[in-house]
């Protein structure tokens, strides 16, 4: 039995975009229509059309990017639904799956097809077509001839008869090789699969090679290719319920300890470790707190318990992340009593990739534990790990990642980043740049014109309130370099054209001052 969901890429993309499946839409790859749906086809959009042609035919066409991962992801629930009815499902590609026809269990084969179709439609997959036949190829062709939510059953031994009438175009779905073959067969005057099947097998193999011979076997319905059914993925979630529900963070973290250990050993049993885990807490059957945690190495039981603690604590403190340190430490109560905590592995990796070094890493473990204690004192995100990233200003070139999290969305360092300030990196980078003033000989404020011309030579400067509360009084500029003009993010209303200056003060300390349309700020110091 083959279940076919036509135009699956479009269905999956529309679902992800939250659009109606009735609007014309097409999935494009390399500016060429890869798949389009029914409404788009009635407007004249075809596969292989260029983007502009397709838009000319149908101006309201919704263009969606191709994403095979998304298609496969969206197809997973369909596989699971069919798997519930009959195990041994093989995903041939997103939108097409094969399963051994559940014969007498549901009565006849047509009844089985009806059951599968109904289950999928209940799962809101509207366009389902089912074909049942002796072999895979015939079943797929049967599914393609079926109507929406209908099925075509090819009787046992009837594959050859069924295939005879089909045009050779049916072979075109077999990738570029298939399309090439279709063209060749048409030039040879073979219009239907029956014409091809009538040829002697040796002649086909001599003329068309091994691929042709395989196609010939398929066209005669003699191909006994079976599929490799997938093994259902093991259930790796672990959860714990509390009866009665608990409302104190300490009690919950204490109670999840054994579950966390079970979760880790269960993964270890499959030679896996989790590097990303979603922790869900339920209150009266409703998930009230859910968060994905990433680990720079992999999660141990103790790490998981810590994550539960932090998550519930931050969910429980009324002032949230902005609360004072002391307040955060004292909040021991969660907002609603928790009656279930669940660990869901989001990213698992083979344990072999995370093995301990032969000589151990005892001191690193010690550090991890010590830092976890600091996190317990001042909060999870107050302990950080610096990482480098690409950017133009010194502040943009570094990122502070909470300890125990993995850095995500970093800009690549190995790009040229034109406009960045050359020379040694500044030692002090102010998170909140203090306001500064820079004046020329006549005491006028130094400005930078739109063309990057400096209006006067910087003579004196002062900083209003340097990061730690002590500003710099007026002092002469002994040397300066710049400007390094940059206009970042102008397409989305950025800061406007800015220019950076390296300025050396009277005491021999150098500073990085920035002139923005709003005025001068002290961005960093070479202290």
């Amino acid at each position, binding site marked *: 039995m083959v279940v076919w969901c036509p135009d699956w890429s479009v269905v999956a993309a529309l679902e992800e975009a939250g659009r109606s499946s009735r609007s014309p839409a097409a999935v494009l790859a390399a500016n060429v229509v890869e798949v389009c749906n029914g409404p788009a086809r009635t407007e004249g959009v075809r596969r292989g059309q260029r983007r502009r042609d397709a838009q000319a035919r149908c101006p309201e066409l919704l263009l969606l990017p191709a994403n095979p991962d998304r298609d496969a992801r969206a197809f997973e629930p369909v596989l699971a639904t069919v798997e519930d009815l009959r195990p041994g499902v093989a995903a041939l590609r997103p939108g097409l799956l094969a399963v051994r026809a559940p014969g007498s269990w549901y009565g006849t084969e047509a009844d089985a097809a009806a059951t599968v179709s109904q289950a999928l439609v209940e799962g809101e997959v509207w366009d389902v077509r089912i074909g049942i036949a002796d072999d895979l190829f015939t079943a797929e062709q049967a599914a393609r001839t079926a109507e929406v939510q209908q099925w075509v059953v090819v009787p046992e031994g009837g594959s050859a008869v069924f295939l005879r009438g089909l045009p050779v175009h049916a072979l075109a779905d077999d990738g570029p090789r298939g399309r090439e073959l279709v063209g060749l067969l048409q030039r040879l005057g073979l219009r239907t699969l029956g014409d091809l099947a009538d040829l002697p097998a040796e002649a086909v193999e001599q003329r068309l090679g091994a691929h042709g011979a395989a196609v010939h076997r398929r066209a005669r319905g003699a191909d006994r290719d079976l599929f490799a059914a997938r093994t259902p993925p093991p259930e790796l979630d672990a959860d714990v319920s509390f009866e009665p529900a608990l409302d104190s963070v300490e009690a919950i973290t204490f109670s999840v300890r054994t579950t966390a250990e079970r979760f880790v050993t269960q993964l270890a049993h499959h030679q896996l470790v989790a590097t990303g885990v979603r922790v869900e807490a339920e209150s009266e059957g409703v998930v009230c707190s859910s968060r994905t945690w990433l680990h720079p190495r992999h999660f141990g039981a103790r790490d998981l318990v810590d994550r539960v603690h932090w998550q519930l604590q931050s969910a429980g403190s009324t002032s949230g992340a902005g609360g004072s340190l002391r307040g955060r430490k004292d909040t021991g109560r969660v907002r609603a009593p928790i009656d279930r905590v669940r660990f869901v592995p989001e990213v698992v990796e083979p344990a072999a990739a995370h093995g301990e070094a032969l000589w151990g890493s005892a001191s690193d473990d010690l*550090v991890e534990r010590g830092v976890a204690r*600091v996190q317990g004192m001042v909060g999870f995100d107050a302990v950080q790990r610096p990482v480098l990233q690409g950017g133009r200003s010194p502040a943009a070139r570094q990122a502070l990642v909470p300890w125990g999290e993995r850095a995500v969305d970093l800009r690549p360092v190995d790009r040229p980043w034109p406009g960045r300030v050359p020379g040694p990196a500044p030692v002090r980078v102010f998170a909140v740049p203090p306001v500064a003033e820079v004046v020329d000989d006549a005491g006028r404020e130094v400005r930078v014109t739109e063309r990057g011309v400096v209006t006067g030579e910087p003579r004196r400067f002062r900083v209003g309130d340097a990061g730690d509360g002590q500003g710099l009084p007026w002092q002469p500029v002994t040397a300066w370099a710049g400007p390094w003009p940059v206009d970042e993010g102008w397409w989305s209303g950025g800061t406007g054209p800015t220019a950076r200056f390296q300025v050396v003060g009277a005491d021999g300390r150098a500073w990085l001052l920035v002139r923005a349309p709003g005025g001068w700020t002290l961005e960093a110091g070479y202290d």
Partner: protein
Amino acid sequence: MSSARSVAARAPGLDPGRSVVEQLRERVAAMERRPALQPVPTLPGIAGLVPMHAGSTYAVDSASLALALAAGASQAGEWVGFAGCTDFGAEAAAELGIELSRTVLVPDPGEHWLEVTAALVDVLRVVVLRPPASVDERTAGILDSRLRTRSAVLVVHGAWPRADARLSVEESRWSGPASGTGQLLQRRARVVVRRGARPPARADLTWPEVCATEVREVRRASG
């Protein structure tokens, strides 16, 4: 011999030119001493000026000096931490040789700065602390006694009542920029070390490659 070589490859800080057994013996001897006497790896440019020992406190008055003191240990494979440094320059730290993957940052410990520093001292080798405005003798004493039982070094950037050595920048010059041309290239600073009643020692240090040089030709960095 191959096993000895692999030992040298595994254990950072071993000199491949000398006998591995001899070096390991030295290490064992160092470990058997009180933790407070163990030497802490220091950048070569600074080692001559102020050899660092575990259990000591060093006060500095510039962020560059604090980074330079931490860089040696980090290069040798140790963990370092920065508490209270809201303006940590990660790129400059990496340029000086600090391994960022072994760096712990607590930018704003707030009122818990003492507990946080004590906890970091327990597990890290070098802890750089930017203390709040006023620290009394007693508070410093608490950290001091904690330091003595651990093999860590405390580098304080700011005012601190008791320190084994105080490093300060006396005079600093930048080469590179003139009026509107060039770029910052190299900093040369006269660093003064005051330890106890001894007469102050002075040396010239250069940045970003920390080395104690008297006269050194300034190479123009390309790009």
